[in-house]
């Protein structure tokens, strides 16, 4: 399932890029993220508490940044396992366009869900990925828009 979108951020490209690499920022923007530990330059381990309707379960996520082209683009590859719930796997390709004081951000998100979540909740998968994506980018952009 694929979602894409774009946002205008009232900040210079380098500043946005730095934020994209900041584990604290990622933690803030990922819905339900409780822990984010950097294990290598471009790899993080996270604990994410998913609360979607009646579902409340904790995923262990491995987040890796690949195809990093500073300061304009990278892909976040996320794979998460949630015990009995199954697994989630996804990638978010993010690219930045430098417009001086503003930055245009494009993203393409792909997500796959496996195991019990797919077997009993297939109707909801699209909505959930959309929701997590929207949450992430809304939060991210709010870092600047709420200040202004």
């Amino acid at each position, binding site marked *: 399932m694929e979602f894409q979108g774009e946002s205008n951020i009232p900040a210079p490209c380098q500043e946005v890029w730095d934020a994209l690499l900041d584990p604290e920022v990622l933690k803030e923007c990922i819905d339900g993220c409780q822990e984010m530990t950097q294990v290598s330059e471009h790899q993080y381990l996270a604990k994410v508490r998913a609360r979607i309707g009646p579902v409340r379960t904790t995923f262990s996520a491995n987040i890796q940044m690949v195809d990093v082209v500073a300061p304009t683009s990278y892909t976040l590859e996320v794979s998460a396992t949630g*015990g*009995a719930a*199954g*697994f989630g796997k996804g990638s978010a390709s993010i690219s930045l366009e430098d417009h001086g004081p503003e930055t245009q951000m494009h993203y393409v998100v792909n997500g*796959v*869900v*496996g*195991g*019990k979540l*797919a*077997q*009993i*909740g*297939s*109707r909801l998968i699209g909505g959930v990925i959309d929701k997590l994506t929207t949450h992430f980018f809304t939060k991210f952009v709010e870092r600047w828009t709420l200040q202004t």
Partner: protein
Amino acid sequence: MATETGIGASVRRTEDARFITGTGRYTDDINVPNQTYCVFVRSTHARATIKSIDTSGALSTPGVVAAFVGADLAKDEIGDLPCGWLVKSKDGSDMVAPPHPPIATERVNYVGEPYALVIGETVKAAKDGAEAIVAEFDMQNPVLDVASATQSEQIHESVPSNRSYDWELGDKAATDAAFENAAHVTSLDIVNNRLIPNAIEPRAALGSYDAASETYTLHTTSQNPHLERLVLAAFVNIAPEAKLHVISPDVGGGFGSKIFVYAEETAVIWASAKVGRPVKWTADRVESFLSDAHGRDHVTHAELALSEEGDFLGLRVKTTANMGAYLSTFASSVPTYLYGTLMAGQYKTPAIYVEVQAVFTNTAPVDAYRGAGRPEATYVVERLVETAARELNTDVADLRRRNFIRPEDFPYETPVALTYDTGNYAASLDKALDYADYAGFAARKAQSEAEGKKRGLGFSCYIEACGLAPSQVALSLGAGVGLFESAEVRVDVTGSVTVMTGAHSHGQGHETTFAQLVSDKLGIPFENVSVVHGDTRRSDYGLGTYGSRSIAVGGSAISTATDKIIAKATKIAAHMLETNEDKVSFDDGIFTIPDSNESLSFGEVAFSAYVPGNFPLDELEPGLSEKAFYDPANFTYPAGTHICEVEIDSETGTTSIVSFVAVDDFGNVINPMIVEGQVHGGLAQGIGQALLEHGIYDADGQLVSGSYMDYTMPRADDLPDFVVDTTSTPCTHNPLGVKGCGEAGAIGATAAVMNAITDALGIKELPMPATSETVWRAIQGG
């Protein structure tokens, strides 16, 4: 004995007493002292290499007794799960069967494949342990599309092109010639959708090992306990057959899915010795969806050649059958000997050629599901015939009638290896036409159209081959076992009778039907006959229940054993009556010397057999108990006509079945009520396939119809009242003149429904299931 309980009477079922009071005893109802609980850890990936499995977290989980992986079974030389039917390809080579370890060792090949098991003091502890297992996988792209599977990445090292076999049947040259001479050719591209059997009782197993006697006992939800024992002994290497006791108690429906030997009971019985305690497993429904063998799943191109006048000249069928990730127990036989052989249908098509390639994909194994090959064949033939009639502007009934094999043509040898013994297809068609008020259809259609709705009528004149199976025929075609059936009729001292059968009842009502048969033949009260099944230590041997074989094969074995009882009892009676055997007649439970006052009841003779004061001990052994092993001379060929009428909401595409008529020829019928019930159930499954049911894997190989939230089970309000009746041409080669009735509904119904919908829409093809959106799109013109 024409009585209220004899052959032909709709006797109320004996077994109901326990089922309606909640005292049935299903596998999950059985608990034994000191038992543990098993949970399987299943792959969430469709195709992956197992990099590592760490069970230490499970082992340190409170309440966990043990945790095992595939390598643990391999260490004990536990064998692979075998496929019991060897099919040969066109070039004479054997089918390719990839190794199928019960618990995956190196790779996982479908979502749901078990790669570890955890045994706990409670289910909860075992589940906690299962969650604590850490496994690493190297994922690969799954192969999911049936049509392109042979060109996709290779799943199994030993299976090039993901093809198990490339099989053919019939005369290719003659068929090609028939098409060259044809005035008209009708062709169809058909997808036979994947179904999930969904017996309401999930599979379960309880394995116990008794170290003192070195005996294993397995309670399990099997349609086929003797086969289970045979495979566990001969292939899986659990123990010699004599040390294996398999019991199938009450089983809550099977529909084929409980014939097979699965990973779970194999692992459970092995583990019971490993942990030295009984081990119990009961599937969740999600597990049932993932791991019960699925059904159908064919992609077919089919063509029918006709003459100017509408005579069928030739039939050409090319099918790719999805086997799933491994060959399940009987998988290879389903799209071949239970499919290609049925392509003649009820018709005198002179030349038929069928090609079937069986391919592997990263999905659950596919095997026999109610009808097993015959519904797929019927669907091909009956969709083609109906489409041809429409293309030729011929009445669909007339075209069929024109091509029917006629009563005088029997026995009729088809171009696809079967010899039909008897039948009268027009009789069923005529009766069905009456019930369906065929003449009034045009008016009803006009009425629907006036209301903005669409109405259609569809036929299916199916035939099937059941009563599996003549052993030598089956063995010559690759079967791994003889397919006869055993029976023992044991007369008790007081004249009551215990019948032991190798057939298994999981809804079919054998305890009633078989008792009717024996009480009728012996002239003793129905209540005095008890039927025992489902226990390898009580019945000599058996092949269980599948392929509508129980009455035709199992019943014939019981009939034969009962005849032996009568023969011996007649000898005893002659001695007691001080006359010659040939002077004694037996009727309605009484031995008499005709034209005399001298008679003995069956009970008196039975008593004398066990208390042999007045008994010919010099000629006969005491006691009165006989066995029979009945091997059928041929298949039986139930056939009939199903007519479905549908009305479609043009705005939403929703289809309602407004009437469904089924007229079937089952030969002689022992219990009409039970037979009718079997037809009802089959129809529901056949209609379910056409309208509702679909096992769907997404692009990543996840089963997204993996629960009742998404897999549409037919409910009461999805189905109509059925009109069910029979005609009868008794089977010519078994002692009862019976055919099989268990699958007919599921075999015939699907094509009738889809013919009705395509009729209503005025289109040629429509994928199944014909969901509202599918039909709506067809109405929109694509």
